[in-house]
């Protein structure tokens, strides 16, 4: 129906007809593009590349950990491996993952806008990201760094590895994150199409909005923290160095003031993706739209008040620990609301068990475990036992890797037709999803047990009693890797060999599906007018498909 108005209007804009992928050619047309879709795709490529690097590092030390004795690496090498794995995965993969790639690509499309508010700034964010990445790659080549991604002082201020370049990398990446956040907030406020009211925004946009708030408010603090730490190392200013009267626990406050909210930068966009996919592939209106939207913002806001739960045994005062524990339980409520709402959305739906839905269900399964195990860690007495054991490692991998990654892969598949104009092959995709699910749970569930039995994290060699669990975990990591490689291969293959994607393969109602697959250079052939909510499936005219 309405889409035909678009076709009529397109006649006036002949130059807009080409797909954004082919509108201009040559490497420079990509590296210096102002098109949010191209920038999003470049982010996607870079992030997946670094995900590969970070993943290979993990596989390397997983092999080492298969047995209790140290057999492959020295302690020093092992420490470099897990530090680089953590730093790359956090700063180069998880923080930018969904917002910078899918967010950049989709936000203006979902808003019916031609671009983000500040396209040049957007390009600058990408270049800053690449510069920061270059520093981290340099760190890798300069012998690595072995402080742990948390850079705790005084270890990080006294050790003699390439800490400064790693700090500079993370510092620079922070600005990329801040600028993206500013850009998204302004875009969501100012660039919405006529008729697209706040309560008609897709939940992915709400999630991106909450994410961006955290990026703008929390990232500057890590920037100044890393800045001070660079001076600590180079000039010995002593703010975090007990040898000069400084306070290492203060560093932890600085660090977690950013790094706790930033876990919501990682997971909230995945929540956004799942809100879209669970509704669209069940072809049913999302259950409790307002509650899900509000809980995203609530999680972002409360997320700022709980950082001290990383410090229950750090020498933080008991009073502060108690306050942080109490507020931490407060984050669980909006999170629970989301999970219940997603499941309720499936009730009386029309559920198509395709690859996207498989990843969505995997997300719910894995995130439920990740979220529920968080309750152990929020509880003061139990956390004293669990802190810095494999239980914590398993928990944050369930939330950050399982949660974010399942959401990310679900999103990549869901929007793959829109981004590339091609469908992915369904059978290998389902096999891949199964391998990822089994591999992931085998890798990390075993770590819960090792951890709650008392195995500390960041151990290079360990007591034989943990060997069974660790060995199973290593086996799982290879199954997971096999699933991910399979996924990578068929996705790459489908860019040339996949079937041509229709405009709206999932019969979704959000605005990005109103334009071509892949979209034309300026997104829409005319001015978008929004007249319906994002999940009004009861109005689907199925004859159109």
């Amino acid at each position, binding site marked *: 129906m309405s889409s035909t108005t678009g076709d009529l209007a397109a006649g006036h804009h002949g130059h807009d007809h080409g797909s954004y992928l082919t509108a201009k050619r040559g490497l420079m047309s990509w590296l210096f593009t102002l098109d949010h879709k191209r920038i999003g795709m470049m982010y996607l490529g870079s992030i997946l590349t670094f995900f590969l690097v970070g993943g290979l590092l993990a596989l390397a030390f997983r092999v080492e950990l298969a047995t209790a004795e140290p057999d492959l690496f020295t302690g020093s090498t092992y420490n470099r491996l897990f530090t680089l794995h953590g730093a790359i995965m956090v700063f180069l993969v998880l923080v930018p993952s969904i917002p910078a790639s899918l967010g950049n690509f989709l936000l203006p499309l979902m808003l019916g806008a031609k671009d983000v508010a500040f396209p040049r700034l957007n390009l600058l964010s990408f270049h800053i990201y690449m510069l920061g990445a270059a520093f981290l790659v340099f760190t890798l080549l300069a012998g690595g760094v072995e402080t742990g991604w948390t850079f705790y002082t005084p270890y990080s201020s006294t050790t003699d590895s390439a800490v400064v370049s790693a700090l500079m990398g993370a510092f620079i990446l922070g600005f990329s994150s801040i600028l993206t956040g500013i850009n998204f907030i302004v875009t969501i406020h100012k660039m919405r199409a006529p008729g697209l009211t706040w309560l008609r925004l897709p939940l992915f946009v709400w999630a991106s909005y909450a994410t961006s708030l955290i990026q703008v408010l929390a990232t500057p603090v890590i920037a100044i923290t890393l800045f001070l730490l660079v001076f600590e190392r180079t000039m010995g200013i002593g703010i975090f160095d007990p040898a000069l009267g400084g306070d290492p626990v203060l560093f932890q406050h600085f660090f977690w003031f950013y790094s706790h909210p930033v876990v919501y930068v990682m997971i909230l966009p995945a929540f956004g993706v799942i809100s879209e996919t669970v509704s669209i592939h069940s072809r049913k209106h999302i259950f409790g739209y307002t509650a899900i939207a509000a809980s995203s913002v609530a999680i972002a806001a409360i997320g700022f008040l709980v950082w001290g739960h990383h410090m229950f045994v750090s020498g933080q005062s008991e009073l502060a620990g108690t306050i942080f524990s109490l507020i931490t339980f407060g984050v669980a409520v909006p999170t629970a609301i989301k999970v219940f709402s997603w499941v309720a959305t499936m009730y009386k739906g029309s559920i198509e068990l395709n690859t996207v839905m498989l990843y969505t269900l995997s997300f719910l399964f894995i995130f439920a475990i990740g979220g529920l195990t968080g309750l152990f860690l929020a509880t003061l007495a139990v956390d004293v036992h669990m802190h810095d054991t494999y239980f914590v490692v398993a928990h944050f991998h369930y939330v950050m890797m399982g949660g974010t990654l399942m959401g990310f892969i679900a999103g990549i598949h869901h929007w793959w037709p829109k981004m590339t104009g091609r469908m992915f092959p369904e059978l290998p995709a389902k096999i891949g999803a199964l391998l990822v699910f089994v591999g992931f749970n085998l890798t990390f569930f075993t770590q819960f047990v090792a951890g709650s039995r008392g195995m500390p994290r960041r151990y290079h060699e360990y007591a034989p009693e943990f060997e069974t669990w660790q060995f199973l975990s290593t086996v799982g990591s290879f199954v997971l890797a096999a699933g991910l490689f399979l996924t990578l291969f068929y996705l790459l293959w489908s860019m040339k060999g996949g079937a041509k994607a229709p405009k709206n393969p999932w019969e979704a109602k959000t605005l990005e599906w*109103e334009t071509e697959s892949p979209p034309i250079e300026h997104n829409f052939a005319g001015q978008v007018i929004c007249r319906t909510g994002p999940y009004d499936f009861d109005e689907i005219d199925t004859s159109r498909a």
Partner: protein
Amino acid sequence: MSNGIENESEVAAGHAHGDHPAFLAHHFHDAPQQKSAVKFGMWLFLVQEILFFAGLFMAYFAFRALYPETWLAAHELLDKRMGAFNTVVLLTSSLTMALAVRACQLDDIKGCVRYLWITIGCAFGFMIVKYFEYSHKFHVGTLPGKFYTYEGIEGGAPELFFSVYFMMTGVHGLHVVIGIGIMLWMIMGPLRRGKVSSQYYALVENVGLYWHLVDLIWIFLFPLLYLVR
């Protein structure tokens, strides 16, 4: 009825904004949308600036709480008069910056440039005073962390006060220098090329906001470092 894409010119006609001024970027619908977006973006940038400085203020309050006597003794070594003089210099520069924006609003681009030069002059004045303060500290050895050699302060960790002092004023000074650079660029570039008018002066306005924020931070730095006992 469903969502739709409509012919742009029809929508534009309904919107009574037929003209498309040169400063309007293609992805914005009209000038007010662009103006409010740019301004909003700048305020968000200032928010992140404040939180960047928040880390430094946090360090100040933390060590003030841990070493109160040292803090009292150490701040006596700073020259209040120099700090007060610099406060007045920065306040003046803030005034002239506000007047530069006002000149743009009145389409007086020459006036704007004149006020900007005064602002730059004040900024240089500020940095010169800072230079004298810093060189005095280098001379007597009240330097940050491990470079601290002064011996006249009782109490724990006096070097931390000077670490905090140098980091706070240093990062603030860096912002002043960046401000000078941006103002010079503005005078040489957009203002000279006639890109700024009373129709669209968002650039001058945003640089003004940045400069006022630099002033605002000094308004807090001055009493905390120099005056509070």
